[in-house]
């Protein structure tokens, strides 16, 4: 005779359909997450291993210094004494002058941008990022202060907010064309840092405004009231008792904005980027020349070496090396903002 099944025994019972679905969902979610992680890991591994091989070397000084400090050059490849020789353009010219007789009739293959380094591109990208973030932060934070602290909610402000959010959905190539039409042509800035700064600042404004407004709204109302009740004006209150506490949140927005600004090619290809330029950005006569000069930039360089020149085994190194340095540069700039945020958080804990 079987004992009557008690209610307690059901705990050890066979899986019900509901439990099977539960297990299935758990694994589906888990695998999706792992798949994303896997894709990201593959990208980093690919760029890290192949790009790392270009940037680092096994002998002292362990870093490929010329790649980080020189300008891009044309690579010359020729056969001498039965061995293949590769030389950058400057070195090749000198070599040719010294061995003029010997070089007569030797077939030389040239590969554009495959020698030298990418220093002007690094400098250009850093300048583009810093300038546009600065402009976007000033404009964005001031707008966010207006929206969060001063504006009275109404149809117009709602419309304004909607427009800002919509701006975030505009494709970057459209921003590029806007910048080209507005700054490069209509305002006659030419292809210049200034045009690139403004174009990219407009591109990231929605991120900065939205996140800054959230950060300001998160500051407890009590701090504002406490300050006002002591006879502070609204502006004094915001400056001394609201904005400082919102800064960490605002910096978070700027980290996102930095990643976006540094990575975009489309907005700068019409407004700020040169394929090749001999002078470095600071080799200018006066400051107006500085902001009205075009610069070389890492994302645009990748675009050029990956799609605008004939592909071969020599360009591959440049592509991977540039991508590696690019990732590293963006990470370094973003990390600076993160560290700054950490410091501010510590200072204004609430």
């Amino acid at each position, binding site marked *: 005779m079987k004992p009557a099944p008690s209610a307690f025994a059901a705990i050890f019972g066979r899986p019900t359909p509901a439990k099977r679905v539960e297990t299935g969902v758990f694994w589906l979610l888990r695998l999706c997450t792992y798949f994303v992680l896997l894709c990201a890991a593959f990208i980093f591994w690919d760029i890290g291993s192949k790009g790392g091989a270009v940037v680092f070397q096994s002998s002292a000084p362990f870093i490929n210094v010329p790649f980080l400090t020189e300008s891009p050059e044309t690579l010359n490849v020729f056969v001498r004494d039965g061995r293949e020789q590769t030389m950058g353009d400057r070195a090749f010219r000198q070599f040719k002058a010294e061995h003029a007789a010997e070089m007569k009739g030797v077939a030389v293959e040239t590969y554009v941008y495959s020698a030298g380094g990418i220093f002007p591109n690094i400098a250009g990208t850093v300048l583009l990022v810093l300038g546009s973030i600065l402009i976007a932060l000033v404009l964005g934070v001031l707008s966010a202060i207006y929206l969060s602290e001063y504006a009275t909610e109404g149809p117009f402000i709602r419309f304004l907010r909607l427009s800002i959010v919509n701006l975030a959905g505009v494709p970057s190539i459209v921003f590029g064309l806007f910048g080209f039409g507005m700054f490069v042509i209509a305002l006659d800035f030419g292809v210049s840092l200034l045009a690139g700064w403004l174009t990219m600042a407009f591109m990231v404004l929605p991120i900065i405004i939205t996140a800054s407004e959230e950060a300001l709204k998160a500051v407890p109302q009590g701090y504002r009231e406490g300050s006002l*009740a002591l*006879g502070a004006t609204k502006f004094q209150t915001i400056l001394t008792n609201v904005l400082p506490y919102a800064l960490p949140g605002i910096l978070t927005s700027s980290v996102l904005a930095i990643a976006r600004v540094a990575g975009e090619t489309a907005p700068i290809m019409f407004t700020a980027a040169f394929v090749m330029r001999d002078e470095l950005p600071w080799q200018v006569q006066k400051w107006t020349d500085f902001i009205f000069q075009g610069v070389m930039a890492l994302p645009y360089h990748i675009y050029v070496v990956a799609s605008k020149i004939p592909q071969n085994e020599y360009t591959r190194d440049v592509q991977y090396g540039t991508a590696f340095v690019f990732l590293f540069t963006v990470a370094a700039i973003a990390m600076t903002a993160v560290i700054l945020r950490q410091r501010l958080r510590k200072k204004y804990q609430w």
Partner: protein
Amino acid sequence: MTESVAPSAAPRPLAVAPVAAASPAARAAIEIDDVDFHYGASKALHDITLNIPERQVTAFIGPSGCGKSTLLRCLNRMNDLIDGARVSAGRIRIDGVNIFDPRVDVIELRKRVGMVFQKSNPFPKSIYENITYGLRIQGQKTKARLDEVVEHSLRGAALWDEVKDRLHESALGLSGGQQQRVCIARAIAVEPEIILMDEPCSALDPIATAKVEELIHGLKKQFTIVIVTHNMQQAARCSDRTAFFYLGKLIEYADTRTIFMNPANPQTEAYVSGRFG
């Protein structure tokens, strides 16, 4: 000198502040005349009229939503911050000046009418910076003067001995009661004439509450104090005059003793004896 009270009128024993301090001849510091107040379309205060005497403690009591905090926040125009909130009739005069006159400088008004909030809100800065905040925004930079004010205000808030060695540590590291007293010290530091307190003890434990109440007692020598409280014993213990509000109306306003021992209005009696509210 204690009057015998019918048990039905006051079933709960209440300690009541001595009457002696409340002299009826005291000058009115705040005169509230026929004030109506609206939040958008809904009327929160109906025709409130009362005079708040100088250098005494006046308590506003009443159930939640009765308008006592709204009235308090009218006195330093803190309600200006709320969209659609407005005084729709009547006037409030402080030292004879109607504070809703468009010519009145709200900043100047708030320097003279300080406020302590329900939720203690020390700024996430050092104790020193908290106390000197009001003076610094007025442009006071002299270190000696600031130091003097910090000591004076903290002594005034009975906090000096507890925090004098940690003035430059964050005010958020203090206990709840100490934080609230920092807020009181911060209000004293700008030398107002009137201090408004919006349920200053509602988040404090009984010991911290007793300290703040004791402090209120001492402060009235120098300041006119208006306190909103949910706690009737608190009103009875530390106020000289009490106003009872119900549904946006002033039901009764008299000496605290009278309100608690011998209220004229049956609603007041029902409330103070704990039968509703």
